[in-house]
């Protein structure tokens, strides 16, 4: 079971690859849209890549609620548990 920091780091790699955001900027308290300037299409890609990477399912109705990096990490941890 990966730690919270490991999930955050892996998610940061995905956000970096998809949206070009520096990995060190992808911290738990950051908002994808307001702080990291991730648009809605990039979020679709990030969610898809996260599903592949972590082996979890993130339905569209759940994805809409993932406002911050911390929201996404917490969801992934719950879904993978």
């Amino acid at each position: 079971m990966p730690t919270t920091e490991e999930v955050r780091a892996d998610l940061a790699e995905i956000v970096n690859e998809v949206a070009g955001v520096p990995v060190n900027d992808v911290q738990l308290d950051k908002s994808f849209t307001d702080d990291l300037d991730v648009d809605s299409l990039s979020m679709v890609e990030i969610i898809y890549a996260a599903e592949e990477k972590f082996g979890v399912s993130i339905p569209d109705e759940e994805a809409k609620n993932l406002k911050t990096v911390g929201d996404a990490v917490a969801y992934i941890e719950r879904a993978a548990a």
Partner: protein
Amino acid sequence: MVWGSDGDQAPLIQQTQPWDAALAWDPWPYRATEGDANWPTLKMEGNPVFKWASYTMAKTAAEALDAAGVRAEDLDVFAPHQANMRITDAMFRALKLPSRVVVARDIARQGNTSAASIPLAIEALLESGEAHQRPDLSDHRLRRRTGLRRSGDHPALKSGSKRIHPNHHQRSTVHAHHRGSPRRSCRDRQ
């Protein structure tokens, strides 16, 4: 070649108003305050269509590669339907194509030309020489060896992918999947 359609996604792109009111509208004599037709428009759910287009197309593309016995890393050129640059980028990432693969980005010049987009994009790549700039292949060898990949979708969310082997007749397996019918496969000459 791999192709199919996904009727479950019909609500994602739809006409929300019937033509009846517009067809019944008599514009003469024109009165600005009344009688303007309620013109039908198309409505699209952008994010779900982006998701479908990017990942369903990537999936059919991967199936087409499997059917042709080719790995993604063996490709030299990738020519998807030119609907949207973001979809092209997402497909490129989903297919895990090597960065050296030449990607058709003709949408920047031509826009979305619908069914014509793939042949136009391929022609543009060949005409510009962009696909010929690999240092390890001469023009002749490129044309003989290059595995061109093309992949297209459609407003009705039909999809198809085909591996092209220029100047080379090669048999490959075609998998066709239609809603309501069992999956079937047949042989097709490319």
